[in-house]
C-alpha cells in the first residue's frame, strides 16, 4: 500500500471514531441516536458492498445472490446470541461476527461450487436462482429462519472480552467499526495476493488464465467463497445491531442493493464501493425521512450512473488524477461552476415532479400535504406542475449544452495526458 493511501485510510478511520462525538447531544448527555444508527448501518453496508465488489469489480462475476451470505451470517448470529444468552454457551460477543463470517463462507462454498462452473449469463441466472431459493427457504423452514417474523434475540448476553454490555448503540457502533476495519483491511490485502490478481486476470480474459496453469473456475470459486465470508461478517453485525433478522436480510432486494452501492461507487477502484455504500446509506437514512420516494431517487441515480458515468464516483475522481498531476485543475473550475445552475434546475425540476406525483397519489391516500418552506402547496393546482416540468425541461436542455461544453474543455485539457499507444 502506498503511503498516501495508508494515510487516507487512517484519516477515514479517525473520522469514523470521532463522528459520533461531533453529533453528541451535550445538553442531554447522550449520543444522537440517528447518527449512531446511520453510521452503524454504513459499516455493515460498506462490508456488503466491498465484498460484493470482490465479485463484480475484481473478478467480473455478476452475482445476484450476495445477500444470501449476509443473511446466513445474520441468522447464524441470532441463534448464536440466543445460545450464549439462554444456554450460557461461552462465546464472547466480539468473536461472533467471525463465526457469522464462517457461516457465510460455508454457504458460499456450497453455492459457489454450483454457480462458478458457469460463465457470464449462466452464472448470473444461477445466482438469481440461489437468491430466490434461499428467500423461499427462509419462509418455509421456520426452525432456523423463523418464517415471516424472522428470529429475534437479545444482544445483552453479558459475555464480552472487554467487559462491555452492548446496551448502548455507541458500543455496538464501535464493535461494527472494528470489524469493518478488519474486514476491509483483509479484503484489501486479498487484492494483493496471487488469488486476487488471478481474479482480475480471469475477469479480463477467462481463457488465457487456463494456459498459464490456472483453472479459472477454481479462481472464481475461491473468490466467491471468500466474498461470502466477508458478507457473512456484515450480516453478523446487522443481527447484533437490530437484534432481529428477517427474510429481508437475504432477499433479492438486498442483493440488488449490494450491486447498486458497488456500481454507483465505482467497481474499478477498491474504495469505490465504500463511497457507494456511504452515499446510499445517507440517502436511505436522510432522504427517506424527507420523502416517500427516496427509492425513486436511488433508482434514477443508478440509471444515470450506468448511462453517463459507468466508472462510478470513484472512477470519476480517478479520472481527474492525470489532470491534477499536470497542475491543470484550475482550468476545470469554471466549466464545473457552469454545470451547477443547469444541474440545480434539473434536480429541482425532477424532484418537484416526483414529489408532486407522489403527493397527488399516495400522499392523498395517506392524507399528507406537501409543504415547502412552511407554506402548503396545492398539488391540484397547475402552477407547481408547470414550474416543476418547466424547470426539468430547461434543466435537461441547458445541461445538454453545458455538458457538451464541459466535454470539449475536458478533451482539450487531457488530450496530451492520455497514455501513448
Amino acid at each position, binding site marked *: 500500500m502506498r503511503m498516501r493511501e495508508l494515510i487516507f485510510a487512517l484519516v477515514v478511520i479517525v473520522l469514523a471514531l470521532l463522528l459520533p462525538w461531533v453529533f453528541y447531544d451535550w445538553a442531554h448527555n447522550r449520543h444522537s441516536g440517528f447518527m449512531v444508527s446511520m453510521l452503524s448501518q454504513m459499516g455493515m453496508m460498506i462490508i456488503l458492498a466491498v465484498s460484493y465488489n470482490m465479485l463484480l469489480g475484481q473478478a467480473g462475476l455478476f452475482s445476484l445472490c450476495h445477500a444470501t451470505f449476509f443473511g446466513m451470517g445474520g441468522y447464524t448470529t441470532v441463534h448464536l446470541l440466543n445460545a450464549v444468552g439462554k444456554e450460557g454457551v461461552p462465546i464472547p460477543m466480539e468473536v461472533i461476527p467471525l463465526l457469522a463470517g464462517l457461516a457465510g463462507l460455508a454457504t458460499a462454498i456450497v453455492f459457489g461450487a454450483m454457480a462458478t462452473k458457469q460463465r457470464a449469463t449462466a452464472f448470473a441466472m444461477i445466482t438469481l436462482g440461489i437468491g430466490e431459493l434461499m428467500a423461499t427457504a427462509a419462509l418455509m423452514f421456520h426452525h432456523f429462519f423463523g418464517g415471516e417474523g424472522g428470529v429475534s434475540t437479545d444482544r445483552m448476553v453479558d459475555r464480552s472480552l472487554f467487559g462491555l454490555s452492548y446496551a448502548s448503540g455507541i458500543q455496538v457502533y464501535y464493535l461494527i467499526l472494528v470489524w469493518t476495519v478488519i474486514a476491509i483491511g483483509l479484503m484489501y490485502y486479498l487484492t494483493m495476493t496471487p488469488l486476487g490478481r488471478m481474479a482480475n486476470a480471469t*475477469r479480463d480474459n477467462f481463457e488465457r488464465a487456463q494456459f498459464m496453469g490456472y483453472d479459472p473456475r477454481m479462481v472464481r470459486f475461491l473468490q466467491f467463497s471468500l466474498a461470502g465470508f466477508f458478507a457473512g461478517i456484515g450480516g453478523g453485525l446487522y443481527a447484533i445491531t437490530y437484534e432481529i433478522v428477517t427474510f429481508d436480510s437475504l432477499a433479492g432486494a438486498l442483493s440488488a442493493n449490494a450491486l447498486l452501492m458497488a456500481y454507483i461507487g465505482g467497481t474499478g477502484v477498491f474504495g469505490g464501493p465504500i463511497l457507494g455504500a456511504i452515499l446510499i446509506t445517507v440517502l436511505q437514512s436522510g432522504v427517506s425521512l424527507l420523502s416517500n420516494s427516496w427509492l425513486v431517487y436511488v433508482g434514477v441515480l443508478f440509471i444515470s450512473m450506468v448511462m453517463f458515468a459507468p466508472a462510478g464516483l470513484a472512477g470519476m475522481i480517478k479520472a481527474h488524477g492525470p489532470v491534477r498531476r499536470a497542475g491543470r485543475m484550475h482550468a476545470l473550475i469554471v466549466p464545473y461552476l457552469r454545470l451547477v445552475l443547469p444541474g440545480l434546475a434539473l434536480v429541482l425540476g425532477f424532484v418537484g415532479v416526483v414529489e408532486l406525483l407522489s403527493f397527488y397519489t399516495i400522499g392523498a391516500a395517506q392524507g399528507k400535504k406537501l409543504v415547502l418552506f412552511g407554506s402548503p402547496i396545492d398539488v391540484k393546482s397547475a402552477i407547481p406542475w408547470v414550474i416543476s416540468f418547466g424547470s426539468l425541461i430547461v434543466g435537461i436542455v441547458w445541461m445538454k449544452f453545458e455538458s457538451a461544453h464541459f466535454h470539449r474543455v475536458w478533451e482539450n485539457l487531457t488530450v496530451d495526458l492520455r497514455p501513448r499507444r
Partner: protein
Amino acid sequence: MSTSMAPVALSIRDVRKNFGATEIIRGVTLDIAQGERHCIIGPNGAGKTTCFNLISGRFPITSGEIHLNGERIDQLPPHKINRMGLSRSFQITSIFHRLTVFENLRCALLWSRGYKYSFWHPLGTQKALNAEAERLLEDLNLHDRHNTEAGLLSYAEQRALEIGMTIAGGATVILLDEPTAGMSNTETDYAMALIRRVTEGKTLVMVEHDMKVVFDLADVITVLVYGQVIASGPPAEVRSSRAVQEAYLGALEE
C-alpha cells in the same frame, strides 16, 4: 523425418477433429523431438491453429492420441497440460487488457513458481518473483511500459507481451501461433531474435507464414494442407518435395 536421436517431446498419433459434420483435422501424425525447432506451414484454413487448440487442450479431439514427454494429454484440460510443461501463444493476441504489462507477466509466472491459489502471499514482497518479472520485461524490451495497461500497448508490443507470457512459466514445449503476423520487417527481425533467445534449449513449434523466417529457423518443417500432413522433414527436403511445390510453396513463391 527428423534424423536427431533426441527423445520425443510431443507425439501426435492419428489425430482427427470434427466440427459438426466437417472433419477439419484428418488424421495428423507427428513426432517432435526435444529441443527441435519445428515450423508448421500451410495455407489459410489448413487447420494449423486447430492443431494447436487440440494439443493445448482448448478443444477435445475427436479421435487419436497426443503425448507430452511420454504422458498422454489428450483428455486433460488446458491448465493441467500447461502444468506438465506445455505453453502456447495465440494467433489473436490474448492478454489481460486491464492489468499492467508487469502484472501480465507476473501472472504468467505465478503457477510455475508454486504460488497456486495462494491468498496469503502479498505479491509486492515476493522478491524473486518480481525480479523475474522485471527480467522478462527487459528481455521483451518492454521495461519502459512497466505500468502501462496492456490494452493500451501498440500491436507489436502486445505481440511481444504475448510471447513473453507464453514463455514465462518455463514450459519446455512452446507453441507459437504466427508470432510475427502483421509485423513490419524490422519488428519481425526483432521478434525472431527474441524468440530464438527465449526458447533456447526448449522445444519450439511455430506456425508461420513468412517463408524467410521459416527457412531461417526451422530444423523440421511440416506442411499441413486441408487437415493433413503432406510433408514433414528438414527444410531442404521439404523445399524440394514435389507435393509441397504443387500444393503450396510454388503458389506462394510466385
